[in-house]
């Protein structure tokens, strides 16, 4: 599992869902991000890079932030 979600920070804006190239993410009924298909994640960091709420992270080290 290479994704970490901090639900308390998520405002359900849908940016991560829209930019994920592998349809890993969705929005739950309580308007928070939820993981639909963790095994499809390619750790591209599109979600992490553009999450405006610091609510989703890739749990692998990044060489040059």
């Amino acid at each position, binding site marked *: 599992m290479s994704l*970490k979600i*901090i639900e*308390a*920070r998520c*405002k*359900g*804006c*849908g*940016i991560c*869902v*829209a*930019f994920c190239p592998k349809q890993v993410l969705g929005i739950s009924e309580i308007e928070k991000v939820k993981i639909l298909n963790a095994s499809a994640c390619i750790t591209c*960091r599109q979600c*992490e*890079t*553009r*999450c*405006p*709420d*610091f*609510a989703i*992270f*890739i*749990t*692998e*080290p*990044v060489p*040059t*932030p």
Partner: protein
Amino acid sequence: MFMEQLIEKYFRPGRLPHIWCPGCANGIITGALVKAIYRTGLDKDNIAVVSGIGCSSRASGYLDFNTVHSAHGRALPFATGIKLAAPQMTVIVITGDGDAAAIGGNHFIHAARRNIDLTVLLYNNNTYGMTGGQYSPLTPTNSKASTAPYGTVDRPFDLAALARGAGATFAARGSAFHAPMLVDLILSGIRHKGFSLVEAVASCPISYGRQNKLGDAPAMLKWQRDHAVPAAAYEKLNDEQKADKFPIGVLHQADAPEYTEEYAKIIARARKEGGH
């Protein structure tokens, strides 16, 4: 370094979630700022972050540096004072389009004229979000705002060009969508010796976006993706092609004497000639 640890390092504990609206790009830009600061390798105690008033200026309260959340439009005077008192300090100004270009417009041109070594990170969301979506000097012509229900008549500033004309020695523009590039631009701005402007095109889906029917937060970021053009390529476009595009990248860079260094020389001369 893990990205979560990097964020935690530069944010004050317990300050997240922040106050910004769902989908507001201010968080993306603030994230880009701390990533750039990480890459400078500077100690947190040697950095001052000064902000004015507005949505963007809330950022100073979240960040764990020497911070000042100052008066509307007056971040640059506060920052100028800090830089003159402690020239070894890296001083970063966080401001918005209204804060810097309207209320603080005069301070902006004069700080640029002096070429004082400050880095201004301007979050441009095209509106006064905090006070209800009034139009700012960077709102595009014909856009709707709470103070322009039929569209604005005003022409917006090209702030990078204004900064250059006023004497700034570094001017760049990035966007929240191009966040990794924005990190590079902020880093270049911090490393540049002199007055640096980094305009970050933000998005305000809740106020400006709704008033102008620009879609949701992802749609507004996709608009940036589709309308930003690297500066070199932008220059090759004709006027018609330029009409709905904006250039990103380093737009101006020059060498000129830096204010605090010149000021130090004057102090030394005064002491010598004044016999103190």
